[in-house]
């Protein structure tokens, strides 16, 4: 019987970012229409809204498909995803004018100034966050759906 493990892996993978998206939309609405913050958020919304959930699903399919050969724990597999997401996201956001590179800091949304010295720690924090979310949340979903 075909139990469609890759379909279930995709659905388990997209659940977390799909749940986070409405929170981001609420934040966008509050900032834009209530607080009247005039930053071009909508220009860059395509990255988190359209690409990230799909990438999570595909990443989980890759783990299901490769786990028998690699035996890589799901937490470590998930921690590799920011290596793809953050440079890709940075490239897209700089194209849309969301991210500007200054002489001493990177500027997001023409408002948030992040010093370059903080970029590497932020990247390490992203790896740690992904490790924990994939190990405990996506791993739980995979177990619940009977694919891990």
């Amino acid at each position, binding site marked *: 019987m075909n139990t469609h493990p890759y379909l279930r892996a995709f659905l388990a993978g997209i659940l977390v970012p799909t749940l986070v998206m409405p929170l981001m939309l609420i934040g966008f609405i509050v900032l834009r229409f209530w607080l009247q913050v005039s930053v071009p958020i909508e220009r860059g919304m395509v990255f988190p809204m359209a690409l990230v959930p799909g990438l999570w699903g595909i990443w989980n399919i890759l783990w299901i498909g490769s786990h028998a050969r690699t035996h890589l724990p799901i937490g470590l597999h998930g921690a590799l995803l920011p290596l793809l*997401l953050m440079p890709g996201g940075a490239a897209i956001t700089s194209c849309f004018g969301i991210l500007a590179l200054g002489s001493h800091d990177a500027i997001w949304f023409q408002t*948030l100034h*992040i010093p370059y010295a*903080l970029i590497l*720690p932020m990247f390490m*924090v992203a790896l*740690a*966050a992904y*490790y924990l979310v994939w190990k*405990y949340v996506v791993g739980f979903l995979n177990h619940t759906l009977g694919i891990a």
Partner: protein
Amino acid sequence: MNAHDEERMKHFLKQALPPMGDADPGRDLWPAMRQRLAARPTAVPWFDWALAGGLAVFALAFPASIPVFLYYL
């Protein structure tokens, strides 16, 4: 439907549905099920607690990074 037709129908049904064979499992599964139900949930290792604590500390120390994280992650 006469008796002959019934016999033919039985014959066709037996042909269409192969015998199930030995459907019972080879061993008693209930002890393994009880063991699994009684097992304590896996404890979270100290390393993961340390990572979670580090994330919280970083978010408190650099709150400006939170929107950037939410955007990319």
